[in-house]
């Protein structure tokens, strides 16, 4: 089974679990039990959402980025996350949207600011964890 099929299987399992939990949640009487199943349901829904995001990203990774928006460094610097503007960061020539990435409060992250090409900084901190990038929404490429 390759990685793609594995993800599909996981998504299938997750939808099954959600259906099951929804049924139970409808029928239980005890309020605490209801809360318990509701919590499980929320957890499972979040999991499914993550999986879908992951699957979508996997597809878009194969896309040709030539069709995507191109950013120059000057354009990129507009998206610095201040005043509720989007926070975009370029890594390895790809521009990622970090606007709702929890560790990037206000478009800043451990002394780094959004709106820049942060390839070197990324490599020095997360160089061995490329999968971080896979889960981030991509918005375009950086024009050289």
């Amino acid at each position: 089974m390759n990685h793609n099929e594995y993800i599909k299987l996981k998504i299938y399992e997750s939808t099954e679990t959600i259906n099951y939990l929804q049924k139970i949640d409808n029928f239980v009487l005890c309020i605490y039990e209801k809360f318990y199943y509701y919590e499980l349901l929320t957890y499972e829904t979040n999991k499914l959402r993550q999986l879908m995001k992951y699957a979508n990203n996997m597809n878009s990774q194969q896309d040709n980025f030539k069709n995507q928006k191109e950013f120059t460094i000057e354009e990129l610097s507009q998206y610095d996350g201040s005043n509720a503007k989007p926070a975009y960061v370029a890594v390895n020539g790809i521009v990622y949207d970090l606007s709702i990435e929890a560790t990037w409060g206000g478009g800043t992250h451990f002394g780094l600011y959004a709106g820049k090409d942060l390839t070197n900084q990324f490599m020095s901190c997360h160089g061995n964890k490329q999968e971080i990038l896979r889960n981030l929404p991509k918005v375009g490429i950086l024009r050289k």
Partner: protein
Amino acid sequence: MFHTKCPIVDSKRTIPRKIVDLAIEYINQNKMKKMNLIWIEACGCAGNIISLLNGEDPDVIYFLNKMVNMTYNNSLMAQEGEKAFEKFLETLDTEFILVVEGAVSTKDNGLYNVIARYKGRLITGMKAVDMAGKKANYVLAVGSCASYGGPSAARPNPSLSKSVYDFLDREVIRVPGCPSHPQWIIGTIAHIISFGKPTLDQENRPILFYGITIHDRCPRRSYFDKEIFATKLGEKECMFKLGCRGPVTKTECPIRRWNDSINWPIGDNTPCIGCARNGFPDAMEPFIRY
């Protein structure tokens, strides 16, 4: 109310009471052999001892009467000058807990943080931490300076301050926070005197208090999940876009809260500045952005 369907419900209500009673019982058992405690204020602002005095349930009087025998602290002890430092030296030969607040200033052999003058010699904070750190049964680094360097070691760090964790070549329990919450300090010490060392995480913080991020228990979390954000201070929505550090800071502020549990930063409309986190304050800047 007795609930027939779910047996957990009834016991759930009494569990906290049982744990509280157990803690009190253990502390009463320990009364006869109270452990000594040295509290050194090194290169810091005395914020943590002030925070300790603000403790409630248990308060600092209970802490000093029932839990430990605090033999040395520059703010609280009655003795002065050489007499005070003699107390410090006497305690070194006993079993004791060492609490350090403030970083260790190391430039020029620690000369920028002198805590005593004994027999004509200046005793630096660095020397005192070194002396006591070698002999202590437990070492607690209380506050962000002692735990991680904090404001004392912030750029450009003219005094070459280091955290106690980096300075001492031994196990140091970190109780960070700027200041540390009184209940985190008293709670950690209560655990030590009752059961020994608490369970620590990778950074040597007690999981009991530093296990989950602020973001995970934030009362404004639902706004974040629905992507509704405050655009300026004073709004009731999630302050993530203003530079909130809740998602990268692990403490239990949202449920413990401060000043006798009256309020806490996010409850008072200021974003979290990550004061209990490694890298504070340099890596947590800007504290607010819009």
